[in-house]
C-alpha cells in the first residue's frame, strides 16, 4: 500500500457568519476576509504537519490547489511541492494535482515539475486535474473547453518530458514555436501520473485508457465500486487488467485519543456548511460546458435551486456510509479494513483534519495514524494483496509501459 497524508490547508481564520451572510464561500466571497497574519501562521503550521507526517511513517504527502475560496489556502501546489522537495527526505510528493486547463503555458508546468522531481531526487508523482467549476471563472478560462485543454496540456507536458527538444507544438489551445525546456524530470520514462476525480465518468474513462491510476476523492463505497467497475471495463478494452495498483482513495479520517473528541473534530470536515469545497454557489460551481453533459438536467435544476447539490451529503450520512471515518485507532481500523476489502485500493490518502481542528489535535491525529493505523493497514494490505504501483513495479502508462525510476539508477 501507498499511504499518504493530506490536508486541504483550510483558511479557517475568517468569520464563518460572513460566509453564511454572503451565501457562498467561493469565487466572489470577498478576500477582505482573508487575514494574512493568520495565513502566515497557518502555512507554517501546515508545513510542520507535513514534516511530522514524514516522521510518523507516511509514504507520501498529497498536495492540491484551489482558488478564490477559504476551504483551501493552497493556490499553487507546485510551491508547497518545491518546499517539500527540499525539506523532506523520503516521502513521495504527490500532486493531485495541477489544474491543467487553467494553465496558459503547459511547458512552464513541465519545467516546474521537472525541477521538483530533480530537487526531490525523483520523488514526484504528478497528478493532473480539470480544476473546479468556479476556478475556471477565477482564472478566466473557458469552461466549455475545459476537457479539451486538459487533454491537450497533458499531451504537451508528457511530450516535453519524454521527447528531446527542440520541437514545435501546434495544438488547438496551445501553440509553441520552440519546446526545449532546460529542465527535464529525473525519473524516466517520466514521473508517475495519477488522476483524481469525484463525479465525471469521462475522467475515469480517460485515466483507464491511458493506464493511469485513478484516485477517488471521498466517494461513498457503493459509488467507489461503480467507479472501479467502469475503470476495469475500460482498462480491459484498452488492454490492461486494472486492479488495486490502479486504484486510489482519499479518505476523510480523523483519529483522537477518545471517540468523543474524534467525532467532535470530524464535524469540522463540514466546517463550511456544505460539501467539502465549502458553501458552493450553484451557478459558479457548474458553469455551462464544464460539467459532464450526462448530468445536464441535474445541474440546471441545481443552478436554479430546484435540486440539492449533486455533489453534497449530510455529516451523519457521510459517517454512516464511511465517507468520513472518525474514532480512536482501535475503532477506525475495522472501518478502514471494510473499505479496503470492498473497494481494494492500493493508494490511500488520509485527509486527517479540517476547519478549526486545533494545531495540537492535528498533530496528535498524525502521530496516532503513524503509530497505530498505518502499520495495521500495511498488514491488511499484504493480506489482501493491495500492492501499490511502486510495490508492483507497475508501468507508468500504456504509452510508456515501464516503471518510473530515477535516471542513472536503472
Amino acid at each position, binding site marked *: 500500500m501507498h499511504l499518504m497524508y493530506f490536508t486541504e490547508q483550510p483558511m479557517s481564520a475568517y468569520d464563518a457568519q460572513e460566509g453564511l451572510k454572503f451565501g457562498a464561500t467561493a469565487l466572489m466571497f470577498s478576500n477582505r476576509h482573508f487575514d494574512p497574519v493568520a495565513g502566515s501562521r497557518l502555512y507554517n503550521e501546515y508545513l510542520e504537519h507535513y514534516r511530522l507526517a514524514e516522521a510518523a511513517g507516511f509514504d507520501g504527502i498529497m498536495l492540491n490547489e484551489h482558488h478564490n475560496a477559504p476551504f483551501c489556502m493552497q493556490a499553487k501546489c507546485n510551491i508547497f511541492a518545491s518546499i517539500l522537495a527540499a525539506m523532506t527526505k523520503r516521502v513521495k510528493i504527490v500532486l493531485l494535482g495541477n489544474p491543467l486547463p487553467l494553465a496558459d503555458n503547459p511547458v512552464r508546468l513541465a519545467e516546474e515539475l521537472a525541477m521538483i522531481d530533480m530537487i526531490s531526487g525523483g520523488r514526484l508523482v504528478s497528478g493532473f486535474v480539470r480544476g473546479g467549476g468556479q476556478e475556471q471563472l477565477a482564472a478566466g478560462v*473557458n*469552461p466549455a473547453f475545459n476537457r479539451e485543454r486538459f487533454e491537450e496540456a497533458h499531451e504537451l507536458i508528457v511530450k516535453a518530458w519524454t521527447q528531446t527538444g527542440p520541437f514545435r507544438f501546434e495544438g488547438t489551445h496551445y501553440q509553441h514555436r520552440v519546446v526545449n525546456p532546460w529542465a527535464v524530470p529525473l525519473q524516466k520514462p517520466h514521473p508517475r501520473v495519477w488522476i483524481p476525480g469525484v463525479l465525471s465518468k469521462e475522467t475515469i474513462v480517460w485515466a483507464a485508457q491511458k493506464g493511469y491510476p485513478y484516485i477517488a476523492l471521498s466517494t461513498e463505497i457503493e459509488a467507489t465500486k461503480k467507479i472501479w467497475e467502469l475503470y476495469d471495463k475500460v482498462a480491459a478494452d484498452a488492454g490492461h487488467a486494472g486492479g488495486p495498483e490502479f486504484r486510489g482513495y482519499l479518505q476523510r479520517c480523523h483519529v483522537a485519543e477518545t471517540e468523543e473528541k474524534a467525532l467532535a473534530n470530524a464535524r469540522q470536515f463540514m466546517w463550511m456548511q456544505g460539501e467539502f469545497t465549502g458553501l458552493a454557489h450553484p451557478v459558479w460551481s457548474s458553469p*455551462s*460546458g464544464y460539467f459532464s453533459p450526462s448530468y*445536464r438536467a441535474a445541474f440546471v435544476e441545481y*443552478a436554479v435551486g430546484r435540486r440539492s447539490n449533486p455533489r453534497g451529503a449530510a455529516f451523519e450520512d457521510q459517517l454512516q456510509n464511511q465517507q468520513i471515518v472518525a474514532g480512536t485507532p482501535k475503532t477506525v481500523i475495522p472501518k478502514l479494513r471494510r473499505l479496503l476489502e470492498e473497494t481494494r485500493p492500493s493508494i490511500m490518502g488520509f485527509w486527517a483534519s479540517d476547519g478549526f481542528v486545533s494545531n495540537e489535535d492535528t498533530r496528535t491525529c498524525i502521530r496516532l495514524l503513524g503509530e497505530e493505523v498505518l502499520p495495521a493497514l500495511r498488514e491488511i494490505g499484504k493480506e489482501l494483496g493491495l500492492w501499490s504501483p511502486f510495490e508492483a513495479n507497475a508501468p507508468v502508462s500504456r504509452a510508456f509501459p515501464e516503471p518510473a525510476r530515477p535516471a542513472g539508477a536503472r
Partner: protein
Amino acid sequence: MSTSPPVWTSETASIAGAAVHVARAGDGDPLVVLHHDIGTPERLPFYDALARDFTVLVPSHPGYDKSERPAWLRNVRDLAVVHQWLLASHDVTRDPGRVTLVGLGFGGWIAAEMATMAPRAFRRLVLVGAMGIKPERGEIADQALVSYIDYVRRGFADQQAFDRIFGAEPPTAMLEQWDLNREMTFRIAWKPYMYNPSLPHLLGGVATPTLVVWGREDRIVPLECGERFAKALPQARLTVVDGAGHWVEMDKPDELARLVGGFACT
C-alpha cells in the same frame, strides 16, 4: 397586408457542414432576424407582426436551439460568415440589396459584423441592444455569474412579460436549452466577453442605413453602447424605447415591429 395569423414553416440548410434551422413566414420584401444569446422561442408576437409585411426568416445560430453545433466554430466573426453564407444560398435573400437585417442583442453584434464584411450589401440594418462594443463606463452583464432564469429576467423591463412567454417557473427542458445556448455562447464569445475590439474601427465603412434601437431599461448592455454604434456607423440614428429592457422584442413587440417596419420601408 394580411390580417390572418402568419403560417410558419421550418427549413434546414446545410452551411459549412452544419444543419442550420430556419423558421420562415409571410411574404413581401425579405427580412432576417438574428436572435439573442439565449436563443429564441419559436413563435413571438414580434415575429408575427413582421410577417404581416415581410418574408421573415429567423435562423437559429449554429449551436443554438434547433441548429447543430459545429465543433470548429469558435468566434463571432465565424458565425457572421456562416450567416452570410446562409443568406447567399437562400432563395429569399439571394439579392442582399433587398434584405433588411435585424439583430437582437447578441444577434445585433453578429449583424454588425456581417455589415462590416459587406459594407454596401444590405438594404437596411437594425441593431437592437446590440453587443459587440466594449462600454467605456459600464459593463456588459456577465451571464456566467448568474442563473439561467436570473439572466433572462434581467433582460426584461416587464417581469410579467417573462411569465407570459416562459412561464413563471420555466420547465427543466427550457433550462437545459438555455444551458446549451449559454455553452455555445461561451464557446464563441468567452474572451473578450461579448465584444470585438476591432469592431468599432470597422463600422465606419458600413454604407447601409442603420437604425439603432435600445431599451431604456436595458440592464444587460448599457445604453452608451447604442450611442457608440450610432456614432461609429455613418448612416445611423438611435431610438430609445421606454419601458423596454434588453429583450425589446419581448417587452415591446408592437412598438419594435412598428419601428422596424417604418424604417425598412423608407
